[in-house]
């Protein structure tokens, strides 16, 4: 099978699934996801001659993840240097939107609660804090384990320990809601 034949086979079988990987995982538009997928396939095609292994799809996966990483990284870097304020940018959530009926006392109370939670997370030991932060960002246990290079049990154990500390620090009323598991 020639290089072009191998490429065509992979492209036809996987193109739409790679586009879906980009749209679902990174909330990209269909158009952006297609652009990234084509970019990834193009880089793959150009690198096929240099690849000597027999796991071409794993090789493609590395390229595809790398393409996504660079795209998102450049957006983040541009945003940081441009100092743009987006209305839904989490960096600006400390400016609460004005409530329908402004209630200064209520807003003060919310800000105080937010600070207590923020400080409680920040004060956790690094390993536990990283697990809690990723979990709060809706990462699954296995994703956290994969990223941190830990076993699933180790992740669960760190989360349990973190919750214990938070409970002791904040009281039962303010501890994290239990996971569905």
């Amino acid at each position, binding site marked *: 099978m020639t290089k072009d034949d191998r490429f065509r086979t*992979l*492209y*036809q*079988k*996987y*193109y*739409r*699934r*790679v586009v*879906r*990987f980009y749209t*679902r*995982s*990174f909330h990209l538009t269909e158009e952006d996801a297609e652009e990234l997928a*084509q970019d990834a*396939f*193009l880089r793959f*095609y*150009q690198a096929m001659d240099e690849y000597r292994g027999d796991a071409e799809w794993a090789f493609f*996966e590395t390229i*595809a*993840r*790398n393409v*996504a*990483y*660079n795209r*998102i*990284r450049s957006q*983040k*870097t541009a945003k*940081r*240097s441009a*100092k743009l304020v987006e209305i839904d940018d*989490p*960096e600006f*959530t*400390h400016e609460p939107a004005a409530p329908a009926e402004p209630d200064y006392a209520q807003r003060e109370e919310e800000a105080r*609660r*937010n600070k207590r*939670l*923020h400080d409680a*997370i*920040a004060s956790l030991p*690094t390993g536990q804090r*990283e697990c809690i*932060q*990723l979990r*709060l*960002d809706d*990462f699954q246990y296995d*994703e*956290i384990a*994969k990223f*941190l*290079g830990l076993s699933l049990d180790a992740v669960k154990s760190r989360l349990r320990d973190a919750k214990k500390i938070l409970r002791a620090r*904040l009281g039962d*009323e*303010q501890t*994290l*809601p239990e996971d569905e598991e």
Partner: protein
Amino acid sequence: MTTKLEWQAANRELMAEERRRLGDPPTAEEVLAFTRGELGPEENARIREKLVAYPELVRTMTAEFPTEGAAPGDSDYLSDDEFAKHWASLKKRMPDAGGARVLQFWPAFGSIAAALAVVFGTLFWQARSELTKPRIPLDQQVLLPDDQRGAGAVGTVLAAQGETFLLIVPMINEPEFNNYRLEIVDVLANPPRRRWSSEPMPRRANDSFPILVSRKFLTPGKYQVVLYGVSGARQEQLSGYTLRVPPQ
């Protein structure tokens, strides 16, 4: 009872603080080294800390990747016609698409090219001699880091006079690295193009780096001088200094 949304809001705020403290996310090369376990413990912890502050980037590493392809007949399978369209578009984007055609013409233009090589060789030699002559820069221009400039300012406008001038790149509150490196990037090129890059150099006593620049090198346009900190294999972008060169 505290809701999950409240916890998430507090967490987002904490991550935003971390991003401000830690700076830009790691480069793709750093992440590759991280995932392959090629980093030492300290470097590993530094990259992990940064990535946690950029969870969207962590997702590029952990999101489930398709392992099974579609079979012919599946709705996900790209038909031959669809592939042909995609392939035509991909071919256009390949940098060596026209390479073979140029090579076919080469024999016919061989003698002309040889003559041109002699002419350009002579010009190059003259230019090199000119460039190596001692010269005194007539003027200097101090640049200001982009994040130190007031809101709305779009960069320093080059006002230095003369055929050559000094660009002074001050380091303001920059962290300690073994060495530093500078680049000049043409930001109006699409994509932005690196025009020049320095060798790594140690921090100077006066916390600034002078660059001797020829006016011919900086044609009218918009550039960014970028300062990097370099320690071993680690390299971090520290500051950018935007410079606009007006038409003369």
